[in-house]
Structure formats: C-alpha cells, structure tokens
C-alpha cells in the first residue's frame, strides 16, 4: 500500500504530477491511498518517498477528463483523488469511458463536478462583504463557508468584479486577498476574524423587507434557490421568519385597505386639468395628421405601432396611394421607406417625375400583420378596414387636391373607386376621369415587382410599371400646359 501525500486540498497540478508518476510505474488504483493535510499515514503505508522516479512516458487522456478533474478536485469528498485516479487508470484501457452514460465512476465524477459548480455559483451570490477601515484604507472582508474547496478557483471572479476594491474572503480552510493589483491566498480562519457588522447592513435589510410582496408568498421556491444552510451568513436572512409570519396579515391588509379620499395635491391637479377636448371637426391636413393617431375606426390600431399618414407637399400635383404601411413604415411612422418605397423612388426618378411634387400615402393607415416569431408577416387589409380608413384618404385628397392620383395595387384602386374588387390588368394603361375632375391611374404596387422570381417576368413587369409612370408624367406635363 502506497500513501501519497498532497500538500494542497484542491491543486490539480499537484495531483496530476503525482498521478502521472504512479501511472508510469503501473501502480494500480487499489495499491494507493491519498492523504492531505493532517491525515496520518497508516502503520504499514509507505509515503511519498516511495513514489517511483523519474517520470516515464504515460498515455494521453481526453481533454474532457482534465476539465472534469479541475472541478472534481475541489469537491470535499475525501475519495476525490482516488476516484480521479481510478478513472485515469481506466481511461488508459478504455478511451471512450467518459461517453458511457451508464458507468458509475463516470456519473459520480459528473455529479461531483456539478456540485462544485453549484457551490461556486452560490459563493458568487452569497458572499457578503463587511467594510473595515484600517487608517485611511477601506477594506472589505467576508466570511463564507463553502461546502467544497472552491475558494481559489472562484476568487478570480471577485478580482474581476471588485478590481478597484481592497477585499478578503475568509473560509474555514483558506482565505483569499486582493489589494487592487494582486490576488493572494492565505490560511483559513474563523467567523470572528471578520467584522461582526457593517454600516450598510441595516439598509440592506430594509430593502430586503420592502421589496418582498406578501401577496406572492412562495417559501419552497425561495428555499430551493437559497438553501437554508447559507442563511446563517446572510444578514438579510433574519428577516425571513417574521416576513413569512406576517405575510397573510399584510396581504389581507392590502386587500382590505380600500381607496380613501385622494390627497389634496391630487385634487388640486385634477382641478387644474383642462376639460377633455371634444372631438373637433378637422379643418386642415395638419389636424388630420394629428387626429389619425387616435383613430379607432377599425381594430387594426391595437397592434400596429402608430398610424402612418401620408407625406409630401401640402399641394402636391400627384398623389401615390399604396395599400398599407409595412413593417419598417410602421416602426418609423413614415410611408414608403421600406423596399417597396425604394422601388417607387427609383421609378419616379427614372421617368423624370419631380419628387418634390409628389405626395405618397396609403389606403389603410395602420399596419396589418400576423406575428411569426421575430417577424411580422404582412396581411392584406379586408374590405371593412379599407372602408373604415377611406375617411382619412378622403381628407388627404380633399386638402392636398392632387390633379393626378396613382393607385398602386388593387387595394388602393378599390378604395379610390369604392369598388369591392378591381383587376389591375384590365384597368391599367389608361387614365380614368373621376367625378371631381382628378385623373386616376391604376398600376401595380411596387412590392409586386419585388416578388417576381424569374428575371424575364421581372423585366417585363418593370417595363409595364415604367410605362404606367410615363403616362403619369405626361398627364402632369399636360396639366402645366392647360392651367
């Protein structure tokens, strides 16, 4: 029997160095006992002096084993070194051992590593520093009792987090110290080595008690996340019992305390408030633009971001009317800024229509969509929605008084013609005289051009769209000649 002594409780390199030599010498796991600190050797055990030297070649281990071992070595189970050595030994013969989910050595190591991870996580959460002035220097000292030997590996987290602070964490087995530049480790200590109180602790307890909502009491949930064993070092924990005890009464009090007379400052403010404005008649484009934001004429307002009103000069000669704002238009509150808007701009410029004389708007002012994951899929507005929104389009036509209106797509054409259905193919290519004297052209919505998959079809449709816009340009030009 060989007793191997380790200086440190949780030093992977130390264990690894000795394990390699044991492995090189072919020492079977059953021949070795691992000792740390004050463990005494048994009567018939040889010590480290019997460690075979020098190093011989040893086999390799999967990286996964070293990662696992880095955690397991911090576990408080005295068997951890032997268990690691046994798995190391077995790995020499069975390289796939770690992927065998049913092997008990394997599951033990995984369980131990996970317990260590949890303990380290709880340490990050439940360390409570207390401030201590040593002359001019403020230091922050904490007492913490981890279940496992996690201090050294976890201390770097505190060094990163509290870089500009002088701190120490004392545990029963070791302590960690940071002086704003270097991390060092020392011997363990006792709770009494750490200040017994802190000036801010009462405020913390006040906060803890105040943020608790007694109407939502869930004690078992709290206990599973904040196990009772940690409570003795958490200053706020002394509040827990009274808070739980009084929760029912506090909740009852919240429910029963019905509204009382509002305070005077509220009454004064109410008195100063202007009477709610009556819905006034809309007398200008600017008023319509404002009023459309509170439009409830159809249910679309509820899920759209905002109403998107038309844009352009107040007395534009030509008005383009699309179907409805899309995703981008809805977010920005401006019409025709998305991909279809870019196509429209491209053609307006191409055929030589002056952009400054164009007003663009939509038949429906709110975006209609179907949510799908992180995207909103455009939905065509129905007849009722188009009909409801006609009110706003009429106002725009009334105040802008365009001489030429271009309906982009069937929805716009339906709205402007007041018809239930319109076939673009039949109605495009010629001006339509409207009752009020304006000239209406009907063509495709530019988004249609974006959806054509084949190059040939696309070129054909783009040419037709261009031809339609050329007619619009001619119509505007004709207006100039006949004032």
């Amino acid at each position, binding site marked *: 029997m060989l007793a191997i002594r380790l200086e440190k409780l949780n030093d992977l390199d130390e264990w690894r160095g000795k394990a390699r030599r044991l492995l090189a010498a072919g020492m079977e796991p059953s021949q070795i006992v691992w000792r740390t600190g004050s463990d005494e050797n048994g009567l018939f055990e040889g010590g480290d002096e019997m460690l075979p030297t020098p190093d011989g070649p040893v086999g390799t281990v999967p990286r996964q084993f070293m990662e696992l071992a880095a955690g397991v070595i911090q576990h408080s189970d005295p068997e951890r070194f032997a268990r690691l050595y046994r798995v190391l030994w077995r790995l020499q013969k069975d390289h796939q051992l770690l992927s065998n989910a049913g092997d008990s050595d394997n599951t033990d190591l995984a369980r131990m590593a996970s317990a260590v991870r949890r303990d380290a*996580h709880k340490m*990050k*959460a439940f360390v409570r520093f207390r*401030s201590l002035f040593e002359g001019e220097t403020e230091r*922050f000292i904490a007492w913490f009792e981890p279940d496992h030997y996690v201090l050294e590996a976890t201390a770097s987290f505190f060094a*990163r*987090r*509290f*870089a*500009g602070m002088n701190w120490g964490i004392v545990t029963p087995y070791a302590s960690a110290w940071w002086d704003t530049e270097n991390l060092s480790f020392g011997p363990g200590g006792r709770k009494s080595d750490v200040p017994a109180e802190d000036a*801010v*602790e*009462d*405020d*913390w307890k006040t*906060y*803890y008690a*105040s*943020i*608790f*909502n007694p109407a*939502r*009491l*869930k004690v*078992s*949930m*709290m206990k599973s*996340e*904040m196990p009772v064993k940690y409570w003795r070092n958490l200053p*706020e924990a002394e509040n827990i019992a009274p808070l*739980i005890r009084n*929760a*029912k009464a506090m909740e009852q009090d*919240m*429910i029963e*305390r*019905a*509204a*009382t*007379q*509002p*305070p005077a400052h*509220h009454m004064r*403010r109410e008195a100063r408030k202007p009477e709610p404005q009556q819905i006034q008649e809309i007398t200008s484009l600017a008023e319509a633009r404002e009023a459309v*934001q509170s439009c409830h004429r159809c249910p679309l*307002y*509820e*899920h759209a*971001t*905002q109403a998107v009103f038309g844009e352009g000069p107040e007395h534009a000669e030509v008005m383009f009317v699309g179907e409805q704002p899309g*995703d981008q238009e*809805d*977010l*920005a509150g401006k019409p025709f800024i998305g991909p279809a808007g870019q196509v429209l701009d491209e053609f307006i410029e191409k055929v030589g229509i002056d952009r400054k004389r164009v007003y663009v708007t939509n038949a429906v002012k709110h975006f209609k*969509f179907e*949510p*799908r*994951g*992180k995207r*909103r899929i455009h939905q065509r507005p129905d007849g009722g929605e188009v009909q409801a929104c006609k009110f706003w389009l009429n106002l725009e036509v009334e105040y802008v008084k365009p001489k030429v209106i271009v309906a982009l797509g069937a929805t716009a054409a339906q709205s402007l013609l007041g018809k239930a259905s319109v076939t673009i193919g039949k109605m495009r290519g010629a001006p339509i005289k409207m009752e009020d004297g304006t000239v209406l052209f009907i063509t495709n919505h530019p988004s249609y051009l974006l959806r054509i998959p084949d190059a040939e079809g696309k070129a054909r449709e783009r040419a037709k769209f261009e031809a339609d816009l050329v007619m619009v340009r001619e119509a505007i030009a004709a207006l100039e000649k006949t004032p």
Partner: protein
Amino acid sequence: MVALTLTRKLAILADAAKYDASCASSGSEKRNSAGTKGIGSTEGSGICHSYAPDGRCISLLKLLLTNFCIYDCAYCINRSSSNVQRARFSVDEVVQLTLDFYRRNYIEGLFLSSGIIKSPDHTMEEMVRVARTLREVHLFQGYIHLKVIPNASPELLAEAGRWADRLSTNIELPTDTALEHFAPEKRPAEIRTAMARLRGKLDEAKPEGKPKAKPQKFAPAGQSTQMIIGADAANDSAILTRAAGLYSGYNLKRVYYSAFSPIPDASSKLPLRPPPLMREHRLYQADWLIRFYGFDVPEIVQGGENGDLDLAIDPKLAWALKQRQSFPVDVNRADREMLLRVPGLGINAVDRIIRSRRHHRLTLADVARMTASIDKVRPFIVTGDWSPGGAIDDQRLRQKLTPQPKQLSLF
C-alpha cells in the same frame, strides 16, 4: 414637514417597486473592472444574490427614483390619487446606495424606475443622470436596467441606451381599451412608438457583415416589457396575442407577466383579491412554447376553454390532450418539430433523442433516461419496445396526468 431619512426613503421607494416582476440581469455583454479603478462586472449570465420569501430572485437593487407621480393609473400604488407616503431620492443618493450595496456583493446592479414628476423628459433625464454618474464618475461596470418613460424625447432614449444594459417600456395592460380605462394619461401608441424607437436603435447597434466603424453601443441586453395580468377582463388569448405582436414587432428579449397584486388604498376600479399566480405561471409556460417550441397563439389557446389556458395542467399537455389524433409520435422517426410537441419532452431531451437515434433504435428506457418526466411522456410516444395502445384515447387520461392537489402551506 420632517425630512425623511435615507433608510425611510429606501423603505418607501423599494416598496413602491415591489410590484414590478422583471429582475433579470442576464444576457448583456461581458465586461469587468480589471485594470480600472472602478468596480463591477457582467459575465453574461446574471447572479441572483438573494431571494425574497415570495420566491423571487433579488438580483438588482430595484428602486423608484420617486413615487410622486402626476399620472393616475388605477393599477399603480403610486398613482396621484393614492394616499401612499411619498419620497424622492436625489440622483446622488441612488448612486451611493447602488455602490454601497454592490461593494458588499448584495446585488448585480441597479434597476431604476420612477413615478413621473414635472414631465416625462424631466423624469427620464434624472434616471439617465443616475446611470451616467455611475458609469462615468464611478466607473461602474455592473448591470443597469432603466425603465423608459414612453414619451420622453428620442435623444434621452438614445442616451439611456448608452449607459444601460437593458431598457424596458411597460405595455402595462393587454389591451388598449383597458389601458385607456385604467391609465387615462398613458397613450398606447406612445408606448409602442417608444419600443419601436428602441428597436431601431438596437438594430443600428448590431454589427452587420463587416462594419466600417464599430457601431455605438446601445442597451446590449436588449429591451423588455411588463404586462399586468388579472386587473382587467382580458383573456389569455388576448394577452398572448399582444405578447406575440410585441415580440415580432420590437424584438423584445422578454415579456414579463405580472399577476395583478392587490395594492393598499386600491382604486375602486380594481379587483380586490389575491394575485392569480397560477395563471401567471401558465402564461409564462405558453410564452415559452411560442418562442422556443414553434407553437402559435391560436394553437396554445386551443388547449384551454374560451380563450383562457387550462389552469390545472401545463399548456403543452392541455394542447396534446385536445389533439390526440396527432399522437402517439414515434420517437425513432418523428421530426424535431413534432417531438417538441410531445408533453414532457423539452428541447434538451429532444436534442438528445435526435443525437442518440442516429446510433441505435431508442427504447422506452432510453427515453426515460433523457427526461425527468417519463410518466407524462409515455402515453404520447411509440418506441422500439413500447406502444401506448389505447391509452391515448383513454377518457381518463387527463385525470391521470393531472397533478394531485397539494396540501396548502401552513404559512
């Protein structure tokens, strides 16, 4: 009037914040104070530093800058007509409290909200000043979450996103009608416009392809919102439809559902009863199914009755029990989408099933090892050695799978 002590203010302004459900401190960029004279770090996943007896994690110092408010929202303890005691922190007091608490490792950072005083811009500016002071003067690297005042100016929102890890704008209630009824000063369109602006800023800050210049940082942990459940009459279908619209429109990280809790001195418009905690829980489950499991709102709601989720069983099981014709599912052949719809199989279990079945045909015991709840799964699957037979059509299946009511807590 006698001046309030800082401790008293803390009691009032933390109490005023306790109705807000959100407290996450995860999902931000990684940063720390190494090499600075400051303090603070975020390492991606948040840390819960304590838990209140309501089971909720305390990760952030959640405070109101003030509970004075010119708005009169019926559901809010801080509404102007409430007789609650009022207090107001100075910017420096909040900064000091945050640093004091952070240095002692009580918190991950600050979550600051506020009643609206003077004007939305004034209030937002004060909150931004807290965050700016923490970052610039004290080199604070911890987590900061700021509540957005909906109609504050776009410039203030842009600055808020520069200092904060997360911004949130509360939608408050599931329907516009309810909001107009309960919160007459709030404009639903303004709330959505604020979210749309944040989304625009978040999109801008996202590097696309090979950016020429590094885009300016903006709220790296994204935006979230909160909705109060049970104060108005909206059913679960309306709530989830609203949430789906918000997720798709504004790229929200989270929608928090906060069961309406009775408040002292409550407005007579409100129900006087304990919060519907189970309903809140079911909504979170449904929300999860929509975001990660490929369900859509109408499907989820099908599992319940009249647009409300089933309170007795989880929404996936409820859906499956009404869609029995789609089951059993052969775990050795079904596609990922369908496996995700099996009650009791989570994303991890489904991934494990798909990995393992490439090597060998799975047995019921194999599946049992991959999930914590094989009893729930069994009636809905077929494996190499198992078929549920008629179990899927058993009229009592629902009853068998419904958890038995537990003895109520003595507390």
